[in-house]
């Protein structure tokens, strides 16, 4: 989606200002939630790169959030590393593991790739749970400190929110540049027609691995923030459920749209909270809402927006990313 022109820029500026002033109008609970939204957005942006742009269906993103979270938690809480170092290592580690996980993608595609990455997520969960010596097992790791950066403590909710927001902004800017660079174009070529891409000199192998590695690194970045945000981690949040949830964020927001993950994260993180007014029915209503949304706009919220904004256009063919050939 191109939010081209002035209205788009103005709108974005307004959103940015709203995000900056948000903590002033919110109670600590609200600040915590939008911090969680920012963190999940980062993870979903990563998945959107791998899946939405490069067309590689991955259900491994939860594992990378988990690896990032444990990396930052173990290094800061157990070894007293500064946050910056742990954060960087989490990103690099996930980049490397993501690169390796890309190799199966060179052999298999579509649903088969989804199954392999699904298995990977569950395997990582088992390791996190069973290797108690390192990960604390089911006891988890508590007392994860919120960092001080350049003498500025992020202990308080709003301060940590600004850290999350800052990272989100940097990630957004880098991703924006990436998807508009030749790399982004090559990713999309990979998604739409790898055979043709290869005949145009696009090194599909290298770009596939890169799409996995970068997407996974962003998962790690999100994890590295998740751990100090919650200040406690155990393996359960990083099981397959989170992968499916992140997939939901990308698809519901609009796979392959730059702003899709931000909207998707709203749906996944904030919508259930808003629905809590319905008490014990809130998850049921949430499930129905997601199904309705998918029936009404299978190409996600931004796909719907695009369709409504450009009614003259023919309905675009189903996005290649969403297509799994038999």
């Amino acid at each position, binding site marked *: 989606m191109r939010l081209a022109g002035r209205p788009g820029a103005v709108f974005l500026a307004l959103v940015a200002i709203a995000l900056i002033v948000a903590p002033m109008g919110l109670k600590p609970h609200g600040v915590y939630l939008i911090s969680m939204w920012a963190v999940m957005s980062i993870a979903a942006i990563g998945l959107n790169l791998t899946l939405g742009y490069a067309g590689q269906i991955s259900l491994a993103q939860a594992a990378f959030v988990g690896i990032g979270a444990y990396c930052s938690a173990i290094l800061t809480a157990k070894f007293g590393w500064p946050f910056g170092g742990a954060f960087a290592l989490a990103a690099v580690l996930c980049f490397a593991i993501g690169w390796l996980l890309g190799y199966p993608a060179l052999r298999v*595609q579509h649903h088969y790739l989804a199954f392999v990455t699904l298995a990977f997520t569950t395997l990582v969960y088992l390791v996190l749970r069973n290797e108690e010596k390192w990960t604390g097992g089911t006891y988890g790791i508590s007392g994860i400190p919120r960092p001080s950066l350049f003498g500025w403590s992020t202990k308080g909710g709003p301060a940590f929110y600004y850290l999350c927001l800052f990272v989100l902004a940097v990630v957004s800017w880098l991703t924006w540049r990436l998807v508009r660079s030749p790399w982004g174009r090559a990713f999309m070529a990979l998604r739409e027609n790898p055979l043709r891409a290869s005949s145009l000199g696009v090194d599909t192998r290298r770009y596939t691995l890169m799409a996995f590695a970068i997407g996974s690194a962003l998962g790690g970045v999100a994890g590295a923030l998740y751990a100090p945000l919650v200040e406690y981690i155990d393996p359960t949040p990083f099981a397959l459920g989170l992968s499916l949830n992140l997939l939901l964020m990308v698809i519901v927001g609009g796979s392959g749209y730059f702003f899709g993950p931000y909207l998707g994260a709203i749906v996944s993180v904030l919508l259930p909270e808003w629905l809590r007014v319905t008490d014990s029915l809130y998850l049921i209503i949430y499930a129905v809402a*997601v199904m309705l949304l998918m029936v009404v706009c299978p190409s996600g919220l931004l796909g719907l927006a695009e369709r409504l904004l450009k009614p003259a256009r023919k309905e675009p063919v189903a996005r290649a990313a*969403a297509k799994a050939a038999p």
Partner: protein
Amino acid sequence: MALLQILISGLATGAIYALVAVGFMLLWQTSQTINFAQGEFVMLPAFFVLGAMKFGGMPFWLAIVVGLLLSLIVLGVLFKVLLVDPMLRHGVLPLVISTIALALFFKEGVKTWYAAEAQPFPALWSNDNLEIGGAVISVQNLVIIVVAVTAVLALQWFLARTRTGRCMQATAQNPALARILGVRVERMILYTFLINAALVALASFLISPIYLAKFSNGETLGMAAFIAAIVGGFNQVRGAIAGGLLLGVVDNLAASYISTQYRGAIPLFLLIAVILFRPQGLLGRAEERSV
């Protein structure tokens, strides 16, 4: 003797996986539906039955009939018409998301409107045990193996030998061509959904007396069926039954001889190995894949 016990118990569990895996695979074949709610599909029919007994005051046998009918309607027809049909032409992923949401809906629905706690479920057969060469197997387990294998073989016979079955296979392999040849493709796809609904209902009635009925039962079962379908071969009915039985045995062997903590990992390694080195599955035919 211990090994025999493990093998026999593994086969009994594997038969259930197979039953669920077959339906899973049929849906994929004919309509490219990766049903992430398949486990919940197995969980639900038992609650249809319990609900019919509790709220409708029906006797058990009648409740079973009602449960089967409800399954056919809800998990067969409604699932297809309301969820799959509108999304099918938009590729696999929106439908995947929908089935994930559907799984949540079923789980939460049962929990909210029936009970969060595990429920006992009346047994269809006696709970006696038989002894085979030192290993013990319950009559119920034996019945499960027999019924599952029979059902799958009957299904295979149906698909290969009857006209409708062959039309269904034609639809699965090439819907466009099938349509040209005069096959009523829409109807064939509906049959697939009905067969799946019947299979999961059967699985539900067979296992609930042993495993109890609980809203969260689908989580484990769905995953197992999923792995069984892929390992056995995504395009072969007998592949799915081989996959299911293999998985049941491998799971028990892993727990016995490798590590109970990592018992869940072994089937996953099996899954990854099969996908990477024999993607058509152990018994499947090679399938055309994009390079």
